[in-house]
């Protein structure tokens, strides 16, 4: 398939970079996206990018000024395929006359629809990573005073192997002011569906909660008995379900919209697999958060809960991944495997501030655990086995700064970088910024 701009056409960007069109990647509602190569002075392709070229109707002044603004602010985080520079070319005025360059999405990334249609099978750990990466991306975007306005399946990609995520279609991102999109059906906040509000940071928070629910439960949070009763799911039915009468399927105070076996099996299956802490956030999002846009669950609360998912996965002897439930444990109830029903043997865990990590053979702790900064790339500690006594496990200091080990008896011992502190119930480690309790 060819687009408006032919293969091998050369274009010069606003920053005087030269790009050559390699191929058409696809076309969407607003324009066409091409793979392009950045050319060296000798005319060789040095690296690949994507070029979005707008259709005539969409190549507006307003769109251009949004892009100029986004380009000058720069990308909030690596997950964004952020606009890098503008390209104008009057040769293509019959279509539109400008587009923008962004990073190219690698092939190993899959769409969220692939997850919905079971064409990929990520582990719970990988999926939680994806949820973390996306949520952190939106947090950074919002932190810059911007709103995404259209969080939905179509503009997200993930790597099912490791949970890496990408957010594209950033050309609707705004900093207040008029928004050119309404969002996507099923993701739009109820007040937008009812025509009472425009997309904003607070409606993003609703869409984010829907997205996270889809990722974890492979189901929509408002589709239960009320949806099952509808024969023709047309726009009126949808306005009611997602706008005028939204009821969470697991609303503790309203049982009218519980998932129906046979129609909503995923919701029934997955809900029981997840620990209370994250379920509480979903309940809050789709009860209080439905009516009060300003009281929706913030990204940071999601991030804390998702990190606890990530560091709370136990492998059952049947090989299934099981989420350890701290709230059950606090009530003296064990976590059982959703697959084989066996109870998970007692675990060792460390609690540092808001986060909790299970300490197992290959566990690593990250900067976030001691600094609370949502930084999960730099390891600061890993679980090790005492070479002289294989029954003893320790936490090796890889943080670059000395820790203090506080024994069960209250004794204090320095733990230099490279040394390990004994993992013993009741012991504490002072990481400097925060103290962890085992």
């Amino acid at each position: 398939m060819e687009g408006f701009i032919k293969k091998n056409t050369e274009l010069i960007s606003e920053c005087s970079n030269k790009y050559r069109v390699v191929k058409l990647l696809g076309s969407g509602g607003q324009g066409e996206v091409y793979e392009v190569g950045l050319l060296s002075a000798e005319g060789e392709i040095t690296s690949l990018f994507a070029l979005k070229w707008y259709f005539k109707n969409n190549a507006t002044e307003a769109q251009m000024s949004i892009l100029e603004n986004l380009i000058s602010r720069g990308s909030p985080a690596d997950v964004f395929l952020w606009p890098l520079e503008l390209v104008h070319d009057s040769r293509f005025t019959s279509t539109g006359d400008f587009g923008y360059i962004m990073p190219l999405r690698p092939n190993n990334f899959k769409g969220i629809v692939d997850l919905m249609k079971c064409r990929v099978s990520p582990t719970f750990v990988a999926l939680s990573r994806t949820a973390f990466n996306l949520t952190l991306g939106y947090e950074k975007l919002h932190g810059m005073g911007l709103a995404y306005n259209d969080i939905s399946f179509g503009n997200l990609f993930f790597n099912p192997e490791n949970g890496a995520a990408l957010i594209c279609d950033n050309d609707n991102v705004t900093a207040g002011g008029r928004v050119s999109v309404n969002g996507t059906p099923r993701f739009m906040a109820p007040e937008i569906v009812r025509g009472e509000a425009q997309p904003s940071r607070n409606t993003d928070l609703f869409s984010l909660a829907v997205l996270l629910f889809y990722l974890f439960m492979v189901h929509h949070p408002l589709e239960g008995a009320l949806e099952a009763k509808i024969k023709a799911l047309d726009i009126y039915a949808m306005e009611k379900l997602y706008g005028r009468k939204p009821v969470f399927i697991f609303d503790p105070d309203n049982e009218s919209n519980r998932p129906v076996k046979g129609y909503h099996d995923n919701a029934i299956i997955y809900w029981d697999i997840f620990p209370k802490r994250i379920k509480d956030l979903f309940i809050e999002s789709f009860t209080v958060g439905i009516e009060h846009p300003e009281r929706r669950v913030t990204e940071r609360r999601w991030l804390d809960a998702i990190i606890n998912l990530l560091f709370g996965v136990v492998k059952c002897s049947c090989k299934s991944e099981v989420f350890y439930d701290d709230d059950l444990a606090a009530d003296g109830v064990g976590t059982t495997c959703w697959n084989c029903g066996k109870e998970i043997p007692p675990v060792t865990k460390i609690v540092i501030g808001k986060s909790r990590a299970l300490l197992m053979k290959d566990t690593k702790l990250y900067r976030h655990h001691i600094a609370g900064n949502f930084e999960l790339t730099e390891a600061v500690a890993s679980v090790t086995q005492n070479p002289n006594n294989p029954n003893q496990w320790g936490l090796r200091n890889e943080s670059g700064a000395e820790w203090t080990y506080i024994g069960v008896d209250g004794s204090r011992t320095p733990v230099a970088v490279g040394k390990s502190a004994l993992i013993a119930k009741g012991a504490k480690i002072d990481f400097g910024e925060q103290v962890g309790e085992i």
Partner: protein
Amino acid sequence: MSETKEFKRPGGELSNRPLHFIWVVDCSGSMHGEKIGKVNHAIQSTIPEMADAARNNPYAELLIRTLKFSSGAQWVTPEPVNVDNFCWSDLEAGGVTDMGNAFDLISSQLTIPPMSDRALPPVLVLISDGQPTDDYKTALDKLLALPWGKKSVRIAISIGQDADVSILNEFTGNRDLVLQANNSADLVKMIKWASTAAAVVSAPATPDSTTVAGGAGGSNSSPIIFDINNIPVPEESDPDDINVW
């Protein structure tokens, strides 16, 4: 790698609803020759794009059928077929224009059963170049009185200048959804556009000033909203060429 392989996720696919999409093609004598050939070509080349779009649509199971009418009407595909397995069978033209007969056959399929009681609004795309020779009116009224008939999204493509536009208007319930194809480029564009109704039905946009409602009008119809900007307009052609195919 091995991690993913040994891991079996407990749930299944996102729950979806059937979306019945019916091509209703006029195969009367006036369609004979190049005209029907162009329709065959245009629809056949649109099917892979429909299949692609369906792969990216988690909300619907797209089921396609073809109905032809000339002297009498007949299902070309008797059962709804998943778009992935749907093959276009070339249609041949000859006979009169029993459009009413076609509406009757659609009605019998949009009654519950065989229609399931839980679905997305069905999409009916009518392609015609002429005037019904039978009593289309009674049949159309009956179709539009059915619950699923009322909820259906109806698009008509009129080929050339001889089609009775007022009847096509009656069918769609909305003039904007009667598309005029003056040449084969138009036809391809309009058939392609009509095929995208499947995606619009499963994720309808909320109405605003640039949209138009599809359906019969009146209380509980107009189940779909189209973007006016996207409705294809016929190419300007030399008035002498208008009927040249």
